[in-house]
């Protein structure tokens, strides 16, 4: 049995280095900052708009190893993000009846990449969130096996 494939349009990708690391402000959550940052970039013309026709159709698959994005037309894998590097995944409405998907990939120690996709329908975005959530939960439960072998200790890193 293979994992379900979620269809989406790959809109844009942007690299940031300071947005997520901000910890002083408490008025807005991390998700709000990410969404507003992407939308402002679109207003200023730095990123393509959601309603563009040149976006590539992709499939997204989630396994315990990570997230895999492949092209719908050529079936070649475009992007593969290991689970350890997938920091955040959020879905939001773009205000015009469509659902956008944003996930944050950790590029290096201090820089992050924001990947913006547009889901084909609301159901697929919900399925994607559940799959990623289950992957994280599975990793946490798998870590319990490590505790059986090794005693709990703060020095484990």
């Amino acid at each position, binding site marked *: 049995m293979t994992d379900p494939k979620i269809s989406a349009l790959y809109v844009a990708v942007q690299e940031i280095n300071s947005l997520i690391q901000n910890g002083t402000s408490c008025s807005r959550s991390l998700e709000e900052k990410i969404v507003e940052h992407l939308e*402002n970039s679109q207003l200023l013309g730095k990123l393509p708009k959601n309603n563009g026709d040149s976006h590539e159709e992709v499939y997204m698959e989630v396994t315990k190893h990570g997230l895999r994005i492949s092209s719908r037309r050529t079936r070649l894998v475009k992007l593969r993000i290991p689970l*350890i590097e997938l920091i955040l995944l959020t879905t939001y409405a773009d205000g015009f009846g469509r659902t956008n998907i944003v996930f944050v990939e950790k590029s290096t120690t201090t820089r992050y990449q924001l990947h913006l996709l547009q889901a084909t329908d609301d159901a697929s975005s919900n399925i994607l969130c559940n799959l990623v959530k289950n992957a994280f939960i599975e990793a946490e439960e798998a*870590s319990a096996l490590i505790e059986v072998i090794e005693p709990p200790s703060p020095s*484990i890193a």
Partner: protein
Amino acid sequence: MAEVSVAIVRLKISALSDKAIPSAQDFEICVKEEPSTAKNFGPVKHDYNIKKRVTVGGHTIGADVFKLPNFSFEPSKVSTLEDMIHDYFKRTGNIIRRSVRIPLHDDLHQPSSSTKPFVGHVPGLSLVCVPVFNKESVEVANSRYENLQKMVNLCHNQPEMFDIHTKNMILILERWLIDSQTFDSYFLSHFFMKESSRTRIKTCVHNPAFIDLQEQCIRHMSHSVRSNVSSASADLDDRVHVANIAKIAMLRYNKFTISVINPAFNPNFASEDSSCVYFYPGIKQCRAQRAASSTSQDMRSRLYPLHKAAEDGNAEEIRRFLKIGMDSNLRDDDSWTPLHYACFHGHLEVVHELLNSPQMTAINAQNKGGATALQYAVINGNEYLVEILTSHASIDVNIQNNEGYRPIDYCGNHPAIQKILELQIFKSKINVDTSIGSFSIKSRSPEEATVGEVLDRLAEETQLNREQMNCFALFVYSESMSLQLQPDSLIDGKLKVDKWNTTIRKLVGDIPFETPRLKLKRNAYATARMEIVTKVDNNSFAWSTILDEAIHSYLAGHLIANSKEEITKFAAIVCRTMHGRDFKPSSKNLSNLYPQYMLDNHDRGKLADRLKAQLRKNETQNDMQLEAEFISMARGLVTYGASFFDVDVFTKKSMGTEQGLVGVNDHGLHIIFKKTWTVKNFRFDEFTASNKESKTLEIDAQRVRDSYYILVSTQMKFLTGILRKFQKS
């Protein structure tokens, strides 16, 4: 300190009409009036006699100027301007949808009517635009909303009513709003009418390994049951511990998925099946790789029909393909020709058809591994195939593959095939005799081989360098005569039997039929000094050759010793070399120990007695020491290395003829009279040589020694050549 100006823009209802592009009249901007401060830049001219009065909105404005609401902040304490703006409005009780930082450009064109100088971009000054929809209310103290078009008009007509930076920002803002709507028809909808991001976020999933980021998330956190318990307890150590364990678990998953299907269990394989897509570490993209299946066989039949038929042994198919003009030398993906397949599988008829094809099949074609068809025939032990291939006129049995092996190297288990190949190999070898045996020099074309090439090959095999090899030369010889060859001579021409015997009869006389052979000897032009300088003695092959020739020269009587004791030493060393330590010399077995002239002119018993005494003295020395002593003594003689020829010697006084030997080396000319075996040595400065006839050489030494000789020999041209060579040097 940095400063940020906030342009609170409110959209009027008129902008929602069907107009394609709105104008500045559709917006209202929030401005406030403040007294002019020292922040103004540039000269300000005041006419104290006339007070300017401008009515805006029914109010009278005196020395006040318009400014946008602004704030000061420390850049190091604020990460983004948007966060600061949101915090400010939240503290004042207002809710804004978004804040957009507008880039300030330096290319603003100054109106020509302005009398004030243009002030460019000031570092630390920023402009943030806060959109407000018409039904919302965002108020700032001491400010009011004015129509944007009126503000723009005042900026152009009465710039003194604005702060210098405020004027620039208003103009930039107006242009940005108009241009954005022009390029994107949905700009106003996105900018003014879209709800805030907080209300539009649906779900959020966080990675539990990044605990420091979870604190910034306020909704929809993903945790397992155990993690929720840890989170509820608010114990930071436990939360860090869980995060670290989760990170370790995820790191273990950080590997690439590989899915490979055995073609035998997947008959419906399709190249687009993602299950066969490989992932490589470090490569974001992957590429599909097809596995071999029955379809590839069909494709190979279509692309390489000759190869397929040769592999199957279908001679009829081969004949048909060759008849319609297919290329019999075509190579497949592995660079095999049809002949390779036929020989590999042992199809005799197919090989026969290919070799007899009118398209001249390349019998010596090599594949990627460098192997020829003959090699596969030998490996498989097919004797008949080997005979067919070796009978071809163009076959080359000495081609090596990439591992350096020839077909004959695979004949260990097939004696019959080895015999066939040896007969072929014999044709392409040049045999050279040396003191330690015969060398077989490999040559692809013996007819075109030169003496220089053979010497180079011999040098490689005997590990002699170029300087050392100059001490040796190639000779063509038989029982009666030996001639040194020039380096550029063709060997095949010198080994002609008829020509060689004609030359012998011309120079030596009527002799029986002799077969010419090649031999490596000491060069006639080499000197003792040359041997010492090049350290030729260090090479075992060279040492054996030099020692062998020195012994032969001694036994031939060409090395004339200076005393009886010295010649006894020579004999003792020769005795040890030839017969070993246990040999007992006597008057009957001295034939190979002393030169013939010594045996003829002296008592053999005395010679034997002296030899025994010398042998006892040499018992404490080993063979190598004795050999070195022999060579050292030989090189000390003036006749060492001389090439001697049989001549008839005429003298002026006696008017008679004597048989003699004449030799030439770097020391000079040496004449040995055979009757008494006495030698006359002449240095090159003691005589003059003249060659009046082709077979006559006159030696005039009367000026120094009152000697005059006339030498007559059929080989005079060789003697003269060597003589002139040394005289020049």
